[in-house]
């Protein structure tokens, strides 16, 4: 008991004024603004697909992009909540990306069923995964760095969601930039690898966010 009293005395002496972390919604808005600005710069540099307006007339493409944006928002909010030890006592909101992902999977399945005759497969393959990875590196790194300053008690989950946020930026960029209508190609080289990187995030989170 004396040890505990000594420790409390020592911690109280070290306990100067501390600026509380911003509200998670403020944090996630900040992260989203940074990611959106990055995406915008990338699109300005690389250019958008030449028939983007026409592509948005296809409902499945429009829904797919809308759900990618929803994933981008949901993962940002979830990552911010997971950075607090108690998830800011908003545990249900943390599950948002899972709900969006469920709808996204259904939409991709229906888009695949509606793809008759199938759109021609592009000649490239893994290059898309590589491009998404390269684009995701920067937002992934700074998001994990920002989350590390807080105190996640669910560090594996937090790492996974952080990587999904970064890869949603990459996936959005490529979908708006690449002239490609093959749903099979985007499933195989855009979204399946994204799930893989989400799983890898469990390990990354343990490595970087453990405190």
């Amino acid at each position: 008991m004396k040890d505990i009293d000594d420790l409390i005395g020592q911690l109280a002496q070290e306990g100067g004024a501390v600026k509380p972390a911003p509200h998670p919604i403020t944090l996630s808005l900040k992260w989203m603004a940074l990611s959106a600005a990055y995406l915008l710069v990338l699109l300005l540099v690389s250019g958008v697909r030449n028939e983007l307006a026409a592509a948005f007339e296809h409902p499945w493409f429009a829904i797919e992009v809308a759900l990618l944006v929803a994933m981008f928002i949901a993962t940002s909010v979830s990552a911010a909540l997971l950075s607090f030890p108690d998830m800011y006592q908003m545990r249900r909101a943390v599950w948002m990306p899972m709900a969006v992902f469920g709808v996204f999977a259904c939409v991709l399945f229906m888009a695949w069923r509606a793809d008759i005759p199938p759109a021609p497969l592009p000649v490239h393959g893994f290059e898309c995964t590589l491009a998404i990875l390269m684009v995701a590196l920067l937002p992934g790194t700074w998001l994990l760095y920002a989350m590390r300053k807080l105190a996640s008690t669910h560090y594996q989950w937090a790492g996974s969601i952080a990587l999904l946020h970064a890869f949603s930026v990459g996936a959005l960029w490529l979908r708006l930039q690449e002239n490609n209508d093959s749903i099979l190609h985007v499933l195989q080289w855009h979204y399946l690898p994204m799930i893989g990187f989400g799983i890898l995030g469990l390990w990354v989170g343990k490595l970087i966010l453990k405190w």
Partner: protein
Amino acid sequence: MTVRSDNLEALMQQALTGDQAAYAKVLHATAQLLRPFLSKRLLFANDVDDVLQEILVSIHKARHTYDGQRPFTPWVYAIAKFRLQDYLRSHYADDIKHAVDIADLENDLSEDVTETGITYESISGEVAKLPEKQAAILQLIHQEGYTAKEVAAKLGMNESAVKVAAHRAYKVLRKRLEET
């Protein structure tokens, strides 16, 4: 000193502005709050103290993630559970790493220590220097005559864990007695 839980939010807000007295009160109240929580989950008092210290240090490190705008106790318990799980994970990982073949233990436990001319009483000073758990197990087996199974039931452990702890204690005692 007991601080009502609804005062903890206000005290913690004061602590965040640099009020050291308020911070000490919050930490004392938190320690009081968590001690029964840990005692229910850990068998030995020194384990409770160890984990409690780790939790208090974690609270100190993570205090910037509390802003006084939400209940304080769920925030504290989230950190406490996190550190307790961490402690239990490393504790059991350590147990597995140092696991001993049960066959070896059976040999050790069948040995009659009194036949060697050494009685429990003659080495009780050395036994007292062992970790609390090991000392308690040896006392129950050799002074009070309980079997490993009975000791396991009494201490809320499983029989193998009792045998492993006893085996480790014998090894330490043997080494110490050889040195003297």
